[in-house]
């Protein structure tokens, strides 16, 4: 530190002030007006807020910290969130375009995948959910849940949230609920747009399942609502794992990527039929059980198993995440 005296710096400070208001954007001229300090002091000396018996300053209640709308605003204003939701709106159109321009008359195989997808609006939705189900949807959930704590850690803002203080359990809960709402929004948005695209281009016809079952359009709407609800429940395990990784690491990419990797690994293992019954314990084994809904007479057993599996994994991961976060030293 070179300035020993008190005189010279104050003169230089005055000089800075002279140009400061003119070019406020200039970083080097960012300054504090001496008058501002006076204002602050006068405001601060008139303001004396008492404190409660628990030591909290007046007006502070733990239960009111980090309201959901605040956290939602924090997340929704992120470009990443906006781009992702925008992509989900765009995806059905991309798929429609791919079907429309990708299949010239000859290449169209009757009875094949394309026919199934383009048979009707509900079928298009089912196709979109199938196409997105193995990678995109788990990735979205992993992104919202894996990024939520780790990105705060990477921005160094986590410590300020915790020092407000938001109790750690509450922070985790509010973050998880927000991520859940955003994931749900994404899960609803995709089939909703797909339904719209489907109705416009393929008409509001019957839903036809791969097993040759057909259900009416109105019934298929209900089936889709249940399908989205089931997918949401089934992806809870990804949410739990991503949350656990999110509190365990300060790198958002590590948390998101880790959860996606586990999901892919589970799907690969699920392909190995030699594992037989053990595959039932893989978290992704029942990922497509919702397709049972496209049926005149719904068989709920696989969906119940899938929900049980997902809830169990989610509970284990979630409790581990809460336990880890409660005692973790925040060093970011």
């Amino acid at each position, binding site marked *: 530190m070179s300035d020993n005296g008190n005189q010279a710096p104050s003169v230089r400070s005055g000089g800075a002030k002279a140009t400061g208001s003119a070019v406020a954007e200039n970083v080097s001229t960012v300054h504090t007006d001496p008058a501002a300090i006076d204002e602050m002091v006068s405001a601060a000396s008139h303001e004396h*807020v008492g404190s409660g018996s628990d030591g909290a300053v007046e007006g*502070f209640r733990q239960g009111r910290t980090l309201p959901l709308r605040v956290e939602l605003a924090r997340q929704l204003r992120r470009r990443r969130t906006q781009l992702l939701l925008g992509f989900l709106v765009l995806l059905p159109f991309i798929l429609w375009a791919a079907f429309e321009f990708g299949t010239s008359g000859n290449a169209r195989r009757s009875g094949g995948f394309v026919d199934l997808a383009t048979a009707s609006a509900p079928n298009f939705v089912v196709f979109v959910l199938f196409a997105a189900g193995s990678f995109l949807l788990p990735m979205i959930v992993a992104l919202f849940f894996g990024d939520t704590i780790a990105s705060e850690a990477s921005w160094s803002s986590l*410590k300020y949230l*915790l*020092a407000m203080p938001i109790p750690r359990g509450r922070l985790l809960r509010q973050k998880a609920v927000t991520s859940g709402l955003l994931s749900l929004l994404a899960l609803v948005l995709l089939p909703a747009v797909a339904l719209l695209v489907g109705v416009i281009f393929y008409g509001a016809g019957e839903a036809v399942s791969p097993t040759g079952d057909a259900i009416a359009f109105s019934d298929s709407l209900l089936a889709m609502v249940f399908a989205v609800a089931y997918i949401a429940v089934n992806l809870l395990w990804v949410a739990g794992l991503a949350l656990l990784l999110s509190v365990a690491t300060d790198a958002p990419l590590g948390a998101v990527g880790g959860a996606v990797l586990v999901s892919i690994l589970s799907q690969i293992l699920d392909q190995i039929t030699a594992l037989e019954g053990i595959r039932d314990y893989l978290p992704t084994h029942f990922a497509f059980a919702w397709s049972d809904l496209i049926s*005149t007479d719904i068989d709920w057993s696989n969906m119940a198993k899938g929900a*049980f599996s997902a809830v169990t994994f989610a509970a284990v991961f979630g409790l581990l995440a809460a336990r880890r976060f409660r005692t973790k030293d925040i060093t970011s």
Partner: protein
Amino acid sequence: MPSIPRPRPRQIATALVVVAVAAGGLVWLNAGDEPPPVTTRDAFLTLQSGPDRTEPVRVDTTLYLPETTPAPAVLVAHGFGGSKESVDSDARELAQRGFVALAWSARGFGRSEGQIALNDPDYEVNDARALVDWLATLPEVTKDGPDDPKVGVTGGSYGGALSLLLAGSDKRVDALAPVITYNDLGQALLPNSAGTSQVARTAAANPYSADGVFKRSWAGIFFAAGMGAAGLADPTGDATEPGTEDDASNSATAGVAVPEPSGGSGGRQPQSGSADPCGRFTAAVCKAYAQVATTGRADQATVDLLRRVSPVSVTGKVTQPTMIVQGEQDTLFGLDQADATARQVSAAGAPVKVVWYTGGHDGGKPGPELRGEIADWFDFHLRGQGTDPGTGFEYAVQGALRAQGAPSVRTVSTGSYPGLGDSAVAERRELALSGQEQTVVNPPGGNPASISSMPGLGSVLGSSSRLAGRIAIDLPGQAARFRSEPMTGQLLIAGASTVGLRVASATGGAPDGAVLFAKLYDVGPDGVRTLPGSAISALRTPPLPADGSAVEFSVSLPAIVRPVEADHRVELVVSTTDQAYATPVEAAAYRIALAPGAELAVPVVTGSRSSSAPPAGPLIGIGVVLGVVVLAVVWGLLRRRREDDVDASLADVPLVIDGLSKSYPGGLKAVNTLSFRVESGQVLGLLGPNGAGKTTTLRMLMGLIQPTEGSIRVFGHRIHPGAPVLSRIGSFVEGAGFLPHLSGRANLELYWAATGRPREHAHFAEALEIAGLGTAVERKVRTYSQGMRQRLAIAQAMLGFPDLMVLDEPTNGLDPPQIHQMREVLRRYAATGRTVVVSSHLLAEVEQACDHVVVMHKGRLVASGAVDDIVAGGGEATFRVDDPAAAEAALRAVGGVRDVVVEGSLVHADLDGLPRSTALAALVTAGVAVEQAGPRRRLEDAFLQLVGEESSA
């Protein structure tokens, strides 16, 4: 500091236990998969058979014994061209289910002796009765009475027919399950689907009119199988079942292995050198085949023979519970054969269950699930175990559209086979067809012919691709077509549709009737035609008058299961030729039209999808898991309650740190028994070189890090993570933490909103003024320089005017004028009665900004007290001079100066209240050149020493 601490041994142990328990659980859950052991006994039995049961025949048998005996027995008969080896796996499976299974090579097959009489009641059936006699002598078999064992019988195709024939002639049989078999061999090989009378009430009924069309290819394949060329006559792979995945190991979808012509290891050597054209057939069978094959028509003797050896001859006497399994991919013994058997057996009073599955002679054998169902049937009817399989009807539906890799079969079940006994007549929907009268030609020699199926190869083609239904070719000029309108919704055809036709001869009459083939296509909106099940109905019309007048009759189309999707049409095609059949060689032409007012009557069987038991287990599991989560949350809340700890005597003291220590794994002690106290209104400097433990201390103060020992109290409240008293602290520790995608103002506003405190408590305006960012406050934080972030962060710490403000290295990254302002801000902030704690590694910083100081080094407290006391050292001064000795003398001469110490070119003196200028004047007067004069800095000496140590270490 590592972001993921190294796991402690306890955690590793816990993880190992969890993994071990989970693995153990998995092993335990899967332990039940090991099949029970089965022992086998091979034996050649000499059975008394023949019309009077006096003709001995040596039969090759294998007895499969279950783990526990005595048990009911099941006879497992093999298909045509097979041997006891070909049913080995089925018999073994039944033995694993606890039955004594008996497999044998029928006479004329395998190593058994005798000649093939096509399930003649005198021969094959009597053989089987002798086997039942033999079973009655075995102690391993449970008995109904003397010489009456508890016995069931099953078998596929030829063996299925035997099971019906045996049950009809031997009442000791208690239950049976014929699979893909015939009712009447005469109708199977010489079908005629044209009828003038009303057809039966059932869904897949066929009029079975006399004088049919010879099914040449299949008959030939069967005859060849009797000559030793096994293989094509019986399906080998498993049919697709609901839930079957596209999996190469167990499904016919991956291609069917065609056995060697010799029939495998157990087969006898082919009679390659034999000149006998009858092979191992009896003379009667051989003669009948030769008669049909050469003329294409069956004479009365042949018809009588075929009827005698067919189940139809005894079905009126079958009263035992009968489970009839028939394949939907079967151009040899179609669903109509099972339909006829079901009608006849049911009329005789037997409980009947009918199952249509996706296989058949063109598809595959029953899959594991269906085989299990057959075993369940015997379980219930032979020993009363398990739930009643009932007398229902179920059929498998294979989807017309396929998703890759997804299972594409579902099962529809209903309480009873429609039209059987008291149950309602099969529902038929009328579907209008349109099409003008068309003239079709039978080419001379019947060639080229339409193609509908590939007998014997159907299973190879069939399921591996969707080719099976696509190989159908109708030749132009040989086929009349009648189309429906596109479907508005899905139509699930289940059974044999009927339609009325009007046929006239265009070439001078047909006294023997015209041979025609009727088939029903599913035509997609893109024109792709699929022939479901490759099935066609061969028919011979009533005699056509020579005058060209038309004859009206009704036709039963092949029994199929096919979902016809919306926008698809059905197309009725009537052709004159088919490669698989013997057709007339004379050229002819016919005019074919729909009978007036005739509509296609399509059978529909509504039912419910077969589903497993209600999913109670998983739902209970979900409830348990949620309960555990709730308990954990409640326990966590209770634990948090206990953390409150208040010391009322310290309620006005902003900060008391007592014996604080923090160790990290690996022995590093970042903070070591640190104790100090901060009073209200102070600006406290926490001074120490990098790594002294300052930041760690501040993080513990904010509840971010758990202390290993000791405590921190803020206004009397002990700090723990999330302690409410933290709301009285404003902090800036180790860098700003902002959301880079938001502006500075939005960051502060969201920060405050997240505290949940009233907005008016925040004082945004004042805080932003202090930050002094001007219009930059509206820019995204990611565009800020480090200094700007720093200022914004300090403004954030100041929001709400906290009673205790904690700033870690607040002047890093600021330029000198800004640093100066910052000091001013802190000093004046403390003057409002609040407290400021500032950490720094720069002595001058602390000296100028703080009134109190705590010096730390390597986690320990080195010194603490008022800055003036420590820094100024009580009025001591230091002079840098050219002649220290002279200077010392001169200073000592000045009154009141004590303790003059020389240190190199520096002279330290305690001026004891004397102004430094006076001492300076004295030195100058003494002729000493003074380079520098100032207060003595004991603290700096000590501090530099510390830092020096640090850097040299």
